[in-house]
């Protein structure tokens, strides 16, 4: 099925738009519009493409089961081409032109913070289905991915006793990297370790030569990567090329979210340890059943789902759909209230339930190691609540709150 790949560079003037190729089931009723905004091209497409595939799959599944409230679901996918300003264009379009019932999308925290205020302003429900740095406190926004208290908090106690106490962080230079590196610092200190240095890299940096020399000079026990996007994949290549792979072990809060394990050779990727709320390799009946259906539907084009992001998109859509069913309406406030009753989804990733205090989710977390173009799951931790955001955010008490809390860790 076709989706509009590059829906627009600058947005659409009325009347100039070519007819949209839309997906809807052959049901007569007025369709419900769902908008997805994920990068299908540019540096972030390594995450975006599997996310789009999962959203498509989830919508098809729902339509095959008769749609929602007896109405078909019409999905419009926009490709912001890894360009933040296109995110705002498409979010505006989704809210003011498409009158979407819900917008699923945003990959980087930068894109989330670009579209969140727009969807707030135009009163359009928003689902952000990505692991991120935590702290968003906004009743209109549901964050269905894992946050540092769920993933970093599992990662650090596993690697520090094994590898050592001195940590060196390399992170993407925007809010995700900045805030996540603070969480890493906090959990490293909680475990009796220390952070030697944090280096930030803009998303288009490809030459990590000097950075690798700097790391060698600092002689850490562990390197933790919070690097993001296609350009940053060169870090893992250059790290291996410099012969560092065998000398300093690495963990990551972002590695494997896309197709990194596929585009790198096993020699470059093996051994990197990560913690996420999903890995394609999870060995549960629910996951096997899902993958079977997914592959049957997508055929040979089925993307590798890697870790977290693609699956959270699938789960996020189903949480929303359950909310609509419970509310019996697509009215924004009714759906929000229904979701806040603590809706639960049992899916391929395990159990996910909405935490009404924060509009985040309680989910299962898994720890895994990159292994032969995939992951080997090492441990699992069921029912992990979003403790970080819960510390600062209480939407039940302050429903009108709308901000992102940032952890305060002295670096």
């Amino acid at each position, binding site marked *: 099925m076709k989706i509009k790949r590059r829906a627009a560079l600058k947005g659409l003037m009325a009347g100039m738009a070519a007819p949209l190729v839309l997906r809807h089931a052959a049901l007569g009723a007025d369709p419900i519009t769902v908008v997805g905004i994920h990068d299908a*091209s*540019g*540096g972030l*497409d*390594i995450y975006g493409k599997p996310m789009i595939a999962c959203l498509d799959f989830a919508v098809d599944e729902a339509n095959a089961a008769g749609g929602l409230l007896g109405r078909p679901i019409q999905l419009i996918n926009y490709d912001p*081409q890894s360009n933040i300003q296109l995110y705002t264009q498409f979010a505006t379009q989704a809210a003011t032109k498409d009158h979407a019932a819900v917008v699923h999308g945003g990959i980087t925290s930068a894109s989330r913070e670009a579209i969140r205020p727009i969807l707030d302003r135009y009163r359009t429900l928003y689902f952000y289905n990505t692991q991120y740095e935590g702290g968003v406190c906004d009743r209109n926004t549901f964050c269905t991915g894992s946050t540092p208290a769920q993933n970093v908090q599992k990662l650090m106690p596993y690697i520090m006793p094994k590898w050592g106490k001195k940590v060196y962080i390399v992170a993407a*230079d925007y809010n995700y990297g900045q805030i996540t590196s603070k969480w890493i610092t906090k959990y490293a200190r909680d475990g009796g370790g220390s952070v030697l240095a944090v*280096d*930030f*890299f*803009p998303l*288009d*940096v*490809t*030459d990590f*030569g*000097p*950075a*690798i*020399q*700097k790391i*060698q*000079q600092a002689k850490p026990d562990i390197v933790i990567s919070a690097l993001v996007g*296609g*350009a940053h*994949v*060169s870090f893992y*290549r*250059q790290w*291996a*090329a*410099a*012969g*560092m792979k065998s*000398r300093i072990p690495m963990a990551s809060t972002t590695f494997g979210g896309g197709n990194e394990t596929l*585009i790198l*050779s096993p020699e*470059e990727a093996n051994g990197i340890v990560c913690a996420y709320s999903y890995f394609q390799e999870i060995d549960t009946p629910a996951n096997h059943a899902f993958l079977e259906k997914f592959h049957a539907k997508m055929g040979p084009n089925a993307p590798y789902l890697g870790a977290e992001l693609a699956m959270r998109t699938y789960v996020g859509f189903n949480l929303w759909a359950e909310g609509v069913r419970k509310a019996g309406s697509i009215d924004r406030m009714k759906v929000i209230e229904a979701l806040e009753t603590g809706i639960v989804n049992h899916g391929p990733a395990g159990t996910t339930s909405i935490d009404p205090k924060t509009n985040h989710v309680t989910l299962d977390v898994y720890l895994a190691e990159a292994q032969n173009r995939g992951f080997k799951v090492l441990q699992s931790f069921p029912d992990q609540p979003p403790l970080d955001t819960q510390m600062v955010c209480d939407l039940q008490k302050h429903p009108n709150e709308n901000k992102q809390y940032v952890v305060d860790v002295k670096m």
Partner: protein
Amino acid sequence: MALDIVFAVGFQVLSGVATLLITSLGLAIIFGMMRVINLAHGEFLMLGAYAAILSARAGLNIWIAMLVVAPLAVGGIGLIIERLIIRQLYGRMVDTMLATWGLSLALIGAVTMIFGNTVAGFSAPLGSFAIGSFTASAYALFLIVAAVILLGGVWAILRFTPAGLIARGTMQNAEMASALGVSPDRVYAVTFAAGSAVSGLAGALIAPFSGVVPTMGAAFIAKSFITVITGGAAMLAGTFSASGLLGTVATLGTFATTPVFGEVMMLAVAIVLLRLLPQGITGRFFRRAL
């Protein structure tokens, strides 16, 4: 400070300089000989990288793909572009810049349509080596050697071959050269193709580090442009001195601060240089160099 740190940092500086030199040389040849600023230079790098990665995927030896296929392919494309665009606008510097900028956008668009806006890449085809307690990529060492050979090769061609003599003559005085029976059209066509080929080779050489994506040229064109302009009229001495200076500032700046401020420092130095030496480094020094 331990000696091996000094060597390790020195190695990174050399590697930074070599990358800047390799990625600027094609532009410098075309600017030095023809007074044409080819703003599609970054896309020539990109095409070189794609030529290498595609022929390597087709089963060709990676070294042949990088060192032979990439320059030949991009040199050929350069020949066509010279005929279709550059020749029509000769002597109109600004128009040429605009037309090649259009070409740059069109090439990005065309390659995106064919291969998708997705980062491809291949790993550096050499292992690592140690400097004291530091290890570094052997491929970076190869890049440094490649830069030296490239620069020396172009210099030798200009200095010792008949074609080089004609090229130098045309560079000095195009009318006089044509009075002597040398067709400037042919000299320009060959120069542009040669400059393109060098750019194609450069693109293939940097591909293992930079990753291959249709928009990769943008990261290089501005730096190359600034390097060439800062270098001034003498193409080899200018590019060499400018990339030496700017590459050193950028790398040391990166060590001292962050990659971004390293680059900012380099650009700031370029502005100061242009203010002090409005004709570039070789407009003031080494005026008689190549």
